[in-house]
């Protein structure tokens, strides 16, 4: 079952790589490399799902792994690249928090997540490694959303959080029931499309996609 799978060396390696890919996003100021790192992260997640599927022999999880591969590591990065090309955004990301503090904060968040998960008593029966990686992804995703100026990066932050939850779900319970998983994929995909439309709209009305400009509604 899940514990055996997640204890195994290959799984640990995959999870470590997922964290590394997150830090690639944190440590980069180029939009393309962020999107690429996200694609790699999703590919690794698909691998995790694939291994869980193989070791439990459940067809549901194979489907989920395949969908992750197609939607998250191919379609969504493609949508990102399409948006970047269409609105000709400057390839550099402007930051509220610079790269080196960002990396330090990211590292701290990982440590905090690890201790948080260790401190919860439910942990004895599941892989704390996978769950704390999942927590880290969620918190780093949030951090990316608030520390980067481009609207595209906020979208990417949400997707990183979602990836984190996916890892959490698959490590806790071998994934949710298939119907729910399909629904979540549907929502993520539609969500990305609609956020894309919104970004186009922001670009058209504000002539930029810096979220700095979205500060008029207060009080």
């Amino acid at each position: 079952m899940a514990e055996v799978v997640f204890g195994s060396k290959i799984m640990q390696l995959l999870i470590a790589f997922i964290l590394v890919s997150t830090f690639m996003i944190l440590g980069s100021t180029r939009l393309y490399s962020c999107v690429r790192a996200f694609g790699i992260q999703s590919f690794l997640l698909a691998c995790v799902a694939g291994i869980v599927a193989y070791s439990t022999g459940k067809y549901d999880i194979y489907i989920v792994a395949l969908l992750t591969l197609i939607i998250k590591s191919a379609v969504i990065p493609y949508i990102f690249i399409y948006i970047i090309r269409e609105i000709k955004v400057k390839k550099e990301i402007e930051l509220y928090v610079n790269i080196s503090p960002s990396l330090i904060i990211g590292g701290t968040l990982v440590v905090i997540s690890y201790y948080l998960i260790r401190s919860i008593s439910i942990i004895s029966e599941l892989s704390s490694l996978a769950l704390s990686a999942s927590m880290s992804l969620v918190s780093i995703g949030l951090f990316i959303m608030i520390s980067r100026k481009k609207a595209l990066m906020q979208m990417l932050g949400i997707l990183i959080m979602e990836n984190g939850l996916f890892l959490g779900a698959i490590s806790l319970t071998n994934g949710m029931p298939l119907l729910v998983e399909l629904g979540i994929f549907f929502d993520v995909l539609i969500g990305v499309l609609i956020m894309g439309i919104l970004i186009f709209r922001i670009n058209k009305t504000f002539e930029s996609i810096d979220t700095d400009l979205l500060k008029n509604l207060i009080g």
Partner: protein
Amino acid sequence: MIEYLLLAPVLTGILCFLTKSKKQVETVSLIGSIATLILGLILVKNVYQNNVVISWTNALFADAFSAFIVLIVSIVGFVASVYSIGYMGHEFKHGIMDFKKLKLYYILFHIFMFTMLLVGVTNNLGLWIAIEMTTLVSALLMILHTKKSSVEAAWKYMIICTVGITFALFGTILTYYGAVKVLGESGDALNWTSLIAVADQFDPTIMKLAFIFILIGYGTKAGLAPMHTWLPDAHSEAPTSVSALLSGVLLNCAMYGIIRFYTIATKSTGPAFTSNLLIIFGLLSIGIAVPFIILQEDYKRMLAYSSVEHMGIIALGIGFGGALGAFGAILHMFNHAMTKSLMFFGAGNVLLKHETKEIDKVSGIMKSMPTTGTLLLIGGLAITGSPPFGIFISEFTILSAGFFQGNIISSVLFLLFIIMIFAGFFYNLSKMIFGIPKSGIVPGEVSRWTLGAMVIVAVFVIVLGVYIPPFFYDMIMKVVAVIRVI
């Protein structure tokens, strides 16, 4: 049965897509929303008689609480579609909207209705999916106007609610994990019907964690403070007919999610933990609304903050608990939906006439638009909780529940806050309603359609204040039986 109800708005959306003229799209939309209303009422009647209606091999499910949400969605949805004809028709006539946008509006409107009905009738924690869908569709409705402020509001709404809802997903995963340990891994382990039966066997530690995530997540969507920051922007920037749906119905849908999880979590953790959380968030929401309502300069934002307040009151009612608190909260959901729609409809008329959202630039509505003015006055009295209107009854019930349960400090704070809100809200509203109309305002109502819509909801607001029909009382008691845990 339930699938027909879900099919009606989808079909209407598709038919709207095929229409060729303004008249056609309005007719289709109106007929579609009447059909949705009728199917909704039939479902409510069936649930009322049989307690539970299930279809599609357990995937769709309606008990008294779902039926209650369906009732609110279909009534306000119908009224909002009537209102849309007048409101959007006016914008169309003045060239703010072209036919393409008008058609898009009606299509999205009905898909929005579909997603909200889906929230009510999914027999699954997959409720999450439906709630996320409501965010996606309504964000699109918000950017129909290509103003800078609408785009900003839509982006904030989209980002904040999606993040919130991601937390709710984490809570859902944890609940599923708790359920799997008891029920085993199966597709059923997320169904209300199977969850509620074994909820007392769940591990309390997990359920506590899950409930916190759910409360933060769906609380964001329900506009509970301090996660409410997107709400005033979104509700004031959306087209007014949509604002009514967002405030009156969508917030209730998110609240529905919270209450469902509350019943499950409370069975496992005991009432103290979950109720206290709800009371804290509820009071915070009511309290935060106070200064923003008193000092508000924009009347649509004032109404939006009033929604934050009322969601807080519902959370407070559930938190106080007992039959009385639950009864008050459920009744308040209905009353707030009706009254807030009435207020937004009135505000929409004012907006069309004055073309400004600033309170100071509007006066003398009573003289320039007597009917809208009267209805706004009734709505204003009702929404601030003065007798003899519906909200007074439900707020009073919740307040007495608080005192009965021994939550003296919270009840007193609650009372203080609503008195301050009454003063602030009414001061602002009376500046708009009374006085001499601003120069350049031509007297006369905007449209008969918008007035018709207002009259329909006003009937509910007035009647429920003096008389709760026995069947409606029974219905609420059935809901209370479903959600009551203490």
